[in-house]
């Protein structure tokens, strides 16, 4: 257990230090969201209707792009070899790394949501709904994205390929995340149904992600 705690502490520390990427994700989120009105026009009514979708797309891209280096950094400096050899099961180590990444890069996105909601003319309830769905849904994004990050080690390249691999996997999360936020704002569905499906998706990815990533890493090392 202390091994996993040490891994989480180390990853968060690196993310927050000079050269770490934790806050760049938030900045990306902010920039993408600000860009949207320039494309669709400054119509506040339209923006508040599109708001949840814009925020979800921004969060999706932000959490995906920061995942790029999750395993490749450890692979390049040889840390990954030692993590694979260690007495900690690789699945748990992967889960710990994903958790650390979510704490350092995913949580700030949720904290930034209310400010961006203001820019998109979302009212209090709508902002709260989007923040709640992001809180429930971003773990799913991180844990499925982790599979792509592990594949990036095997394939010796990341970046766009990672995005192409993982984006289709995140479609269900996007559907139910936006549906739940829309339901909270305008109906006609109840908030509970899509939200519980979203939570279920998160829980499922919490299990599938680490196993798939660990399997990919085991076969990918050379």
């Amino acid at each position: 257990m202390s091994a996993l705690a040490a891994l989480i502490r180390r990853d968060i520390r690196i993310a927050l230090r000079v050269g770490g990427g934790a806050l760049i994700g938030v900045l990306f989120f902010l920039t993408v969201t600000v860009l949207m009105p320039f494309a669709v026009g400054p119509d506040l009514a339209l923006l508040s209707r599109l708001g949840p979708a814009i925020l979800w797309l921004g969060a999706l891209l932000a959490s995906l792009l920061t995942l790029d280096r999750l395993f490749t950094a450890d692979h390049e400096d040889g840390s990954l070899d030692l993590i694979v050899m260690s007495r900690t099961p690789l699945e748990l180590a992967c889960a710990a790394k994903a958790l650390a990444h979510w704490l350092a890069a995913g949580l700030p996105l949720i904290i930034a949501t209310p400010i961006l909601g203001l820019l998109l003319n979302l009212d209090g309830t709508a902002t709260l709904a989007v923040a709640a769905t992001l809180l429930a849904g971003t773990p799913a994004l991180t844990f499925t994205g982790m599979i792509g990050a592990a594949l990036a080690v095997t394939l010796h390249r990341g970046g766009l390929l990672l995005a192409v691999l993982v984006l289709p996997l995140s479609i269900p999360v996007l559907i139910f995340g936006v549906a739940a936020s829309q339901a909270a704002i305008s109906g006609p569905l109840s908030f509970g149904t899509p939200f519980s499906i979203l939570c279920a998706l998160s829980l499922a990815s919490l299990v599938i992600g680490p196993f798939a990533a660990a399997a990919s890493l085991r076969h990918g090392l050379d």
Partner: protein
Amino acid sequence: MRLSGRNLKCVRGGREVFSGLDLSATSGEALAVTGPNGAGKTSLLRVLAGLLAPAEGSIALEGGDAELSLPEQAHYLGHRDALKPALSVMENLSFWREFLGGDTLDADRCLAAVALDHAAHLPAAYLSAGQCRRLSIARLLSVRRPVWLLDEPTSALDAAGQEMFIGLMRDHLASGGLIVAATHLPLGIDARDLRMGGAA
């Protein structure tokens, strides 16, 4: 304790690196794997460390902890030092000490053993290649593992560093450990020679 490999064959990228390789080492013994570049020294160590699956053959460690596999009882010192430049020397070492777990030794003493104790609070980014290597060696000391798998351990080390490392390897052998080292330089300790690439 006895480490043995029988009829090992390794294939990488469709190319056969080595085959029909037998090796064995017992407690207190060092095995020096030598051979020209491309003979498969690094591949052999990675096979022993469980990072590469052998295409044929088997590896066994008798007399170790029955609950643990060979990689879990081994230290691997590869070409890369597994250090994070953003963390301090001490943070790097204590991370591996906590993460690898098991029988641990005080981190300060490990740093003192590799003469890095005055650098404990410096960022690892400021270390030279030789100092990075010393810090990796401190990792071997901080957690006790009976098997050391070393890949060119003394490259980048200066004369004093090599001397220091020879002493540490002797201590390890004396306490019942065993060492498999790939090297093209003399190891400096009594070691059985495993020559690769000549016959194949």
